[in-house]
């Protein structure tokens, strides 16, 4: 798929400054446009281009986007990353949905010294033991999203919790983040199950286990198709009333919450973005994204949007090539739809507030009611030894 799209975004700046003085920044977008995460890839791309349209005019450069499809396959993605770096000679790369894909391209990106803005993949290790001065994460880390929930649920009077998640790295990191803080606060985990990832059709057996465990609440992480199946099956057993369902906010993402329907009502989860955050920056983003796609933006869309915004900010700070972009990207800070964002210099991971929200019935569809905004905290360094900061 060699679709190179020339973004005619520099037009506005072209009027302001002489065309000859203009830098062209070549951006490689590495996203899944097919495979299980295609919907996420599309949302991230739409967010990314929305940001370049909104903010690109302020930057002293034009942006050319080269799209490549990872197909959510690490070997394919590595090949595409090589192509972007060696053949297209991109100045910067953005995207990456799956942590497996991120793991595959990490050494290539780090070795070649090409800045990469991660727009989804949440593996804690990517900004931990495997951190790199060239990799800046504008999305989230698995632990970060769930850590604040431990204390918050304890504060709500919940003492005994049963946890469920798919059996793979993200599932375990999400649950570990919650378990750490919940037990530190004084809560008790009365049982845990990790279900075979993408092989579990029926969650009934696990739900019956949770029910008989004596827990007061259930905390889960599921995403995509599994999230839909889980929430619907949980409701069909009538468990929501006696055993409230909490979780990582991906469980009831706006991307598919309407497929869950009334089953999702009353589920309380934590996430770094919900489309109902009440701020001018978010209102502007939601309006622009809806005008472009006709959909309410998801957390994935905002990853793309803020990745695009971060790139523009870096270019505005004077960055023009791989080296200077990498250096500028890890220093960006701005107020976005999610609130005040900055990059932790120790890990290159984003620092952002976390929102606790309840899924409630809105006009004709489900919507998100923000219950609490929990303060931004930098992740623990987690084994990251950041190489000396890239110099200008």
């Amino acid at each position: 798929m060699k679709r190179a799209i020339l973004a005619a975004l520099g037009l506005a700046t072209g009027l302001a400054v002489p065309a000859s003085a203009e830098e062209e920044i070549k951006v490689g977008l590495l996203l899944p446009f097919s495979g299980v995460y295609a919907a996420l890839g599309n949302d991230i791309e739409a967010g990314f281009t929305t940001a370049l349209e909104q903010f690109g005019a302020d930057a002293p450069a034009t942006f050319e986007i080269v799209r490549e499809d990872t197909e959510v396959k690490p070997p394919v993605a590595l090949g595409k990353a090589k192509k972007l770096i060696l053949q297209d000679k991109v100045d910067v790369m953005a995207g990456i949905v799956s942590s497996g894909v991120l793991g595959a391209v990490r050494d290539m990106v780090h070795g070649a010294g090409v800045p990469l803005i991660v727009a989804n993949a949440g593996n804690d290790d990517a900004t931990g033991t495997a951190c790199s001065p060239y990799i800046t994460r504008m999305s989230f880390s698995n632990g970060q999203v769930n850590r604040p929930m431990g204390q918050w649920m304890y504060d709500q009077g919940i003492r005994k919790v049963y946890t469920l998640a798919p059996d793979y790295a993200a599932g375990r990191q999400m649950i570990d983040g919650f378990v750490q803080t919940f037990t530190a606060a004084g809560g008790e985990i009365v049982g845990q199950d990790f279900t075979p990832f993408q092989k579990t059709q029926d969650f009934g057996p696990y739900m019956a286990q949770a029910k008989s465990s004596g827990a007061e609440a259930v905390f889960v992480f599921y995403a995509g198709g599994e999230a839909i199946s889980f929430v619907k099956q949980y409701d069909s057993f009538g468990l929501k009333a006696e055993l409230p369902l909490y979780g990582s906010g991906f469980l009831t993402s706006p991307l598919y919450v309407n497929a869950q329907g009334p089953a999702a009502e009353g589920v309380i989860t934590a996430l770094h973005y919900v489309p109902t955050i009440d701020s001018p920056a978010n209102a502007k983003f939601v309006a622009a994204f809806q005008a472009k796609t006709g959909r309410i933006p998801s957390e994935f869309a905002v990853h793309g949007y803020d990745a695009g915004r971060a790139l523009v900010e870096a270019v505005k700070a004077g960055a023009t090539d791989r080296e200077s972009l990498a250096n500028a990207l890890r220093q960006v800070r701005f107020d976005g739809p999610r609130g005040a964002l900055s990059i932790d210099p120790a890990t290159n991971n984003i620092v952002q507030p976390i929102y606790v929200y309840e899924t409630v019935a809105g006009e004709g569809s489900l919507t998100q009611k923000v219950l609490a905004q929990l303060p931004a905290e930098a992740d623990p360094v987690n084994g990251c030894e950041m190489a000396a900061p890239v110099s200008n």
Partner: protein
Amino acid sequence: MSHDLGFWTLQALNALQLSMLLFLLSIGLTVIFGLMHFVNLAHGSLYALGAYVAASLAAVGGYWAGFFLAPVAVAGVGIVLYSGLIRRMRKSGPMAQVLVTFGLIFALLDLTRIVWGDLALAIEVPALLDGRVALLGVEYPTYRLFVIALGAAIFAGLAFVLGRTQIGAMIRAGVDNDAMAACLGINVERLFFIVFCVGCALAGLAGAVAAPLLSVTPDMGLQILIPTLIVIVIGGLGSLRGAVAGSLIFGFVQTFGAVLAPQLASVLIYALLAAVLVIKPVGLFPAKG
């Protein structure tokens, strides 16, 4: 953790429900194989197609429109596949058949993505089957009971047709020895065609029935294919009894494995599959004695 009788009843019902869902899928696949010696790997894709058609129809005409029309629509697709592709492949040996139907999986996968998009769809459980009923001391979702009942009804229906009717006798004759059956004046080709369509319709029905329980995603067909193949290999290729036995074994091993040995849950069924292949390679209830 102490579990009372109600807990085990609940888990037994869960196991039964999963078994029946798998039975609806595997019976089509196994009968097609038994009669036609044709491995249709695209069977899972037909199941996904059934779910998508049901989701679209449910949005317009309610759940029952999807339930009754999705099997018809999938059978229609089956007719196109049969006349366009499968009839030509009949004599070309299992390797070519596997490759063609394997390719078909990806073609149908992308087709569903183009038509219905990448976002997951869902169907609401119809009002009639919403809620729970008290049964054997536990509260169990009505829709799951409906799935169990439907599976049992389809099994009874097929057992009657195959065992007690003339067309059933013809099908059994065809499975045993198709050349001899043809000599006796049975139009084996037409029989194959009918069986193939019924198999496709059952896959579509399974999709429509599974949709309110699960989510409707493009890759649901791929996810269900392996369990279905395990069911028919354990049960024995080509036999109705084998499909039932295989489904029940799969459902119960999967469910009780998840409860009793959660760390082994994903391995148990494969271990069992390996054991069956070593001890009785033709499966537990093969069609031919």
